[in-house]
């Protein structure tokens, strides 16, 4: 089934139920993993609610995601130790290589970049965590080879 058809289905189900916008958004997110802008626009049209009303709700509740979750979550520790050891440079390198900002996901959906507080392995600073694997003493030059482990 095409994405549009699925949105139509969600809209049709909830359109006439009073106050059901949050329920409709839950269904969209369950199907797509997040709520893309085009979908929000489509939903606004189908459910006859202004787009602003939809974003008002999406941005209020922490449960709703506006960007797709990546297959691999890349976390860079920005705790004091890692910061001193050059974590900021790692962030720059990752942004360059992945062509995304923090909190975003790459176009191919492979990586999601997140900056986190101390992950508790300061002795290994600076630290990058991908999935559940921890990389310590990371140099900016190593980023490319680390990412290549996941690219297949």
């Amino acid at each position: 089934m095409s994405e549009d058809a699925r949105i139509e289905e969600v809209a049709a189900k909830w359109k006439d139920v009073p106050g059901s916008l949050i329920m409709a958004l839950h269904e969209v997110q369950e199907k797509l993993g997040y709520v893309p802008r085009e979908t929000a626009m489509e939903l606004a049209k189908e459910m006859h609610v202004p787009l602003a009303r939809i974003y008002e709700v999406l941005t209020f509740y922490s449960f709703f995601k506006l960007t797709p979750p990546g297959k691999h979550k890349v976390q860079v520790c920005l705790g004091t130790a890692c910061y001193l050891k050059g974590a900021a440079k790692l962030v720059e390198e990752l942004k360059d290589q992945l062509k995304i900002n923090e909190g975003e996901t790459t176009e191919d959906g492979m990586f999601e970049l997140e900056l986190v507080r101390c992950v508790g392995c300061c002795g290994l600073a600076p630290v990058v965590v991908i999935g559940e694997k921890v990389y310590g003493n990371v140099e900016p030059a190593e980023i490319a080879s680390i990412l290549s482990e996941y690219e297949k």
Partner: protein
Amino acid sequence: MAEKICLEDIQKSQQEAGDTWIKVGMATCGIAAGADKVYKAVLKEVESNGLNIPVMITGCIGSCYAEPLVEVKTSEGQFMYTGVDEAMVSDIVGKHVATGKSLPSGVPSDSFNEGQMRIAMRHCGIVDPESIDSYIGNDGYAALRKHLTEGTPEGVIEEMKKSGLRGRGGAGFPTFMKWTFASKSKSDEKYIICNADEGDPGAYMDRSILEGDPHAVVEGMILGGYAIGATKGFFYVRAEYPLAIRRLQKAIDACKKYGILGENIFGSSFSFDIEIRLGAGAFVCGEETALIASLEGKRGTPRPRPPFPTDKGAFEKPSVINNVETLANVSAILFKGGDWYGSIGVGKSTGTKVFAVTGKVKHSGLVEIPMGTTIRDVVFKICGGIAKEKKILAVQTGGPSGGVITEQYLDTPISYESLAELGSIMGSGGMIVMDEDDCIVDIAKFYLGFCVDESCGKCSPCRIGGKKMLGLLEKISEGKGELGDLDKLKQICHAMQKASLCGLGQTAPNPIVSTLRYFEHEYKAHITEHKCRAGVCQKLLKYLVVEDKCKRCGICQKICPADAIEGDRKSGFTVIQDKCIKCGSCLDSCKFDAIVKK
């Protein structure tokens, strides 16, 4: 079309199901501990032993520390096995069930809940939450039928008045009064809403009840709906509780099939329907008016009261909002009578209360106790005391809206009034036990940080006050505080309590007010002596090299990410405090315990 059912027939068939069975606790907590695998292993063992006995799933019995739990009933009695893994299953089934003789590791089930009294959780761990027949078999829906066919809405409210039940969500408003207001409001439509958006960090009794006995809550809601003349009920449930949502939906569907929901329930003139609405991760939606906004599909921001929801609630219609535990009590009260419930407890706090006891206790989990039980009994008798033989520091009740109770007040009998007198609140039932390793300033910071994150931002006292106080607490925990900061904190607390729009902002300062009341000396120690008694506030710690123990291996110097360790293998090493970032790497790396944290 609904089936015609007879409660007595179902009860009879349930009783005839036999007196040998196995039950596996399958709430979220049990499943996380591995109950899924245990359940499958039990099914397999039962089959390979050629036994013909029922294997049932149940909800949480509350003993989270002992999960996964398997209970066995034979003619010898009921026995509980704790911490069960797949390897133990073959003995439990092959030996205990097959021979009827319990294993030494089995604990008699009766002794399991000693000191407790189960009313709201009466069926948790006993009924199969996914089977309506199992609930009916335990007297379920009998009260509903009786009141619908023989009673009146006023009669229901009268029973509630006798029971003295007060809202279990936190504020403790008498349930019968809420219902009376709503029943007197004139409107073509009225709603009853169950608040199942449990968001206090450390509290999970509502999840357990919904996962363990959803029908008790559904029956309570239908009775409440009948009492106020509602046409429809809503469950507002956290989206983060998928299992509770699934079991609740199953319960609602089963009721529709049996005609317990829908038109002319039990042949009476009362018609009622229930719908589930999901929350989406906003703590403020626990506040009545914010919840209503969210239920209507809007941002969950509160509005000033009056008008109160019982006059103008969801979709502008009179609405009653009751908490999960409250409704689970309602169905019990209307089965056994208001006088019975009212005879339990102390003074104006009748009945029982469920607490989620967590923190530094040996046996964390859910306990349901009659009001009037002392906090000491809950912590030391029921929950086994403090873990690792440490000293108790305080007990925190009421979550981010509550306060601390110090050791000298542990003998206080629990009631709405006594906790308020001590500067805390009953709250929804979180009880966090702290020991000597916990820092009071850090705890206050944690709760306030939670409220700052969750503030909806609509009113300025809460939005700005919270942030300012958090800044002051951070300053104090970093050793940069001044004595005048304590007065500033008190002032902001007062302003927030008086001027915030809703309960979140009004109660967010409570943990600070309460900790300042009992532990002002700890705040002062942070400020004047730069000391954190518990060694929690990182910035106040000093890492030092103990010369006598140091073997001068130099590992610490190599590992230090901040180059804060100076010296060499000849002259020894010292930590340069100005450079040290307190990460603790040196302490972890030293094999000779030659680095200490002070």
